[in-house]
């Protein structure tokens, strides 16, 4: 058995035993490794996680990247607005939700959050994320490509990193259902001016997308020619 397989299996077992969620399915991911690679060149990157807090993920990214992780669980905000009947105020809430400075975040983990937002809310959130992302920073997001089966109870997915190539999907109750799947064109427009650098359509009908912000333009000051 290859050493990498052994490590992968051990981490898988550890993740399962840690939270007692061994029955949750593990799905392959193509884009997570690219996301990590996009950050690994930085000394101490700052990561923004928009999903629920997952202890093993914090440890994984902390050990893998030596990064600072900011956890902003937006699913709680969505649930609170749904419960209070204030969903129409959610776009305005998102505009003021993030105290982080512009260009201060190296990587953003959106997971499948955008599946739960209508277009009115998705745009201000995407704008905020683009604002916070540092030039050359990366953003990971998942989008469903098919309608959920009718009668399914609304639920979020807690994405637990097993290793760079596998994610465990642990469902937990949600106050609202997923929205209609976004076509590829809309996804692209939503995050402009970010550009899509990697995109994978998995067998599970999940579209994994990695966005990157354009690097800062090189200094325009004239460079004296070397002799």
């Amino acid at each position, binding site marked *: 058995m290859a050493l990498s397989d052994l490590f992968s299996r051990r981490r898988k077992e550890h993740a399962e035993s840690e*939270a007692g*969620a061994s029955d949750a399915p593990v799905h392959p991911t193509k884009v997570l490794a690219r996301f990590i690679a996009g950050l690994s060149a930085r000394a101490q990157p700052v990561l923004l996680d928009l999903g629920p*807090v*997952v*202890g093993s993920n*914090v*440890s994984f990214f*902390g*050990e893998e990247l*030596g*990064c*600072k*992780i*900011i*956890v*902003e*669980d937006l699913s709680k905000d969505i649930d609170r607005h749904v419960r209070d009947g204030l969903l129409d105020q959610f776009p305005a809430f998102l505009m003021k939700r993030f105290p982080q400075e512009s260009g201060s975040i190296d990587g953003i983990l959106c997971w499948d959050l955008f599946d739960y937002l209508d277009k009115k809310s998705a745009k201000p959130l995407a704008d905020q994320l683009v604002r916070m992302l540092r030039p050359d920073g990366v953003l990971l997001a998942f989008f469903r490509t098919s309608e959920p089966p009718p009668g399914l109870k609304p639920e979020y997915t807690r994405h637990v990193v097993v290793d760079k190539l596998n994610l465990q999907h642990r469902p937990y109750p949600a106050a609202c259902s997923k929205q209609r799947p976004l076509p590829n064109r809309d996804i692209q427009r939503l995050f402009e001016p970010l550009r899509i650098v990697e995109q994978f359509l998995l067998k599970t009908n999940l579209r994994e997308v990695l966005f990157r912000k354009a690097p800062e333009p090189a200094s325009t000051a004239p460079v004296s020619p070397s002799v």
Partner: protein
Amino acid sequence: MWKRDEAVKPTSGLPATPATAASTQPVNGPAAVQPDARRIERDIVNIGKSVVIKGELNGSEDLTIEGHVEGRIELKDHVLTIGPNGKIKAQVFAKAVIVLGEVNGNVTASEKVDIRDGGSVDGDIISPRVAIAEGAHFRGSVDMQRKGAQPGQGQQKASSSPPPEKAQTSMAASTQATAAAAH
């Protein structure tokens, strides 16, 4: 070393008095190590449910807090446990911090921060190791420093902590401690 944390854990659900702390049993300790375990347990200090502390709390022994603390807590080389009834609104500096209650403030640990099921932290964590249970609440940032890095503020305040031979939890002169009647 983490056996000590396990010895702390059972005190959390019980009435918080020094007497109860001394009577707690380690979770997994075999009979042969019980005398050692008892000696360790005697060194654990509890701040009970009805105790409210406002100010600066320095110590040189492990501490379990079940009451309310506002201000600053510093246990440089020791384990701080926030029990299920504990409510902390303070900057926390310790070797290891175990959270079963509520913490509102930044937590800096030189070894580990452990937020257990039902525990809640609103603030930034700086620690080389962080464990967050699935039922825990956390909002803030986690800075897992690379090995060899020193937590800044915790080191700066080291000189203000009492000498180790005192082995007593002391409160700074500004501390106003009130032990109100329960409820």
